[in-house]
């Protein structure tokens, strides 16, 4: 299977390239964004979320309850859209198109991809090269 790889940033973060509803975006891989139903794949800045919402870019919306690390539980809305990986080199769409929900994130928090997004990538595999600090996804 072909493979796309992303290197860790100097801070040790992994930012991957995705297309969210037709918009290219870099999102931080966040293993702490976990949705038991496997539907919420991303959290994006509230400004971008509102822009997509105003342009009619979301399908359905839902209200969720969200637990953050400080123990706070709050309501957060989400909207559904189609998402797809973008290979960083060359810059091209790869892998399956997945329909997932996107959180309206808190201000100042980076755009993030949660575990649900990866679990929706049918037929794909993640290979995390710890020594080389590479996050690679093989896709059909």
């Amino acid at each position: 299977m072909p493979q796309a790889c992303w290197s860790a940033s100097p801070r040790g973060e992994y930012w991957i390239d995705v297309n969210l509803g037709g918009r290219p975006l870099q999102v931080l891989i966040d293993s702490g964004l976990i949705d038991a139903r496997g539907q919420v794949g991303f959290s994006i800045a509230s400004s971008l979320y509102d822009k997509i919402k105003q342009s009619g870019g979301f399908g359905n919306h839902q209200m969720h309850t969200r637990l953050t690390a400080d123990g706070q539980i709050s309501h957060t809305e989400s909207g559904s859209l189609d998402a797809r990986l973008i290979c960083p080199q060359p810059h091209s769409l790869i892998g399956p198109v997945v329909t997932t929900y996107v959180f309206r994130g808190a201000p100042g928090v980076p755009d993030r991809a949660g575990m649900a997004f990866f679990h929706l990538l049918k037929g794909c595999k993640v290979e995390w090269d710890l020594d080389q600090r590479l996050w690679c996804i093989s896709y059909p």
Partner: protein
Amino acid sequence: MDLATYSRESSSNRQAYQQMRDHIRRTYAGQYVALTLGKVIGAANSFDEARDLVHRLNPVPEYYLVFPAGMEPDFDLIYDLSGNL
């Protein structure tokens, strides 16, 4: 909202929803439904309008859900452990 409130309210609303599921799907097809305090308080053609129905209550309930009538609402807690940084 604290964890005890969430646990209590999500459980009671889930139970109420399970009894009303077929009615909700029939009656509010194509609309967004606002669910709180164990009952449907209304439905609207858009998500924001349905949420406004909740916000007009006095007091505004601590726990509520807004969802498309044809879909299961999300009663589960989503962990967003970096979401408050």
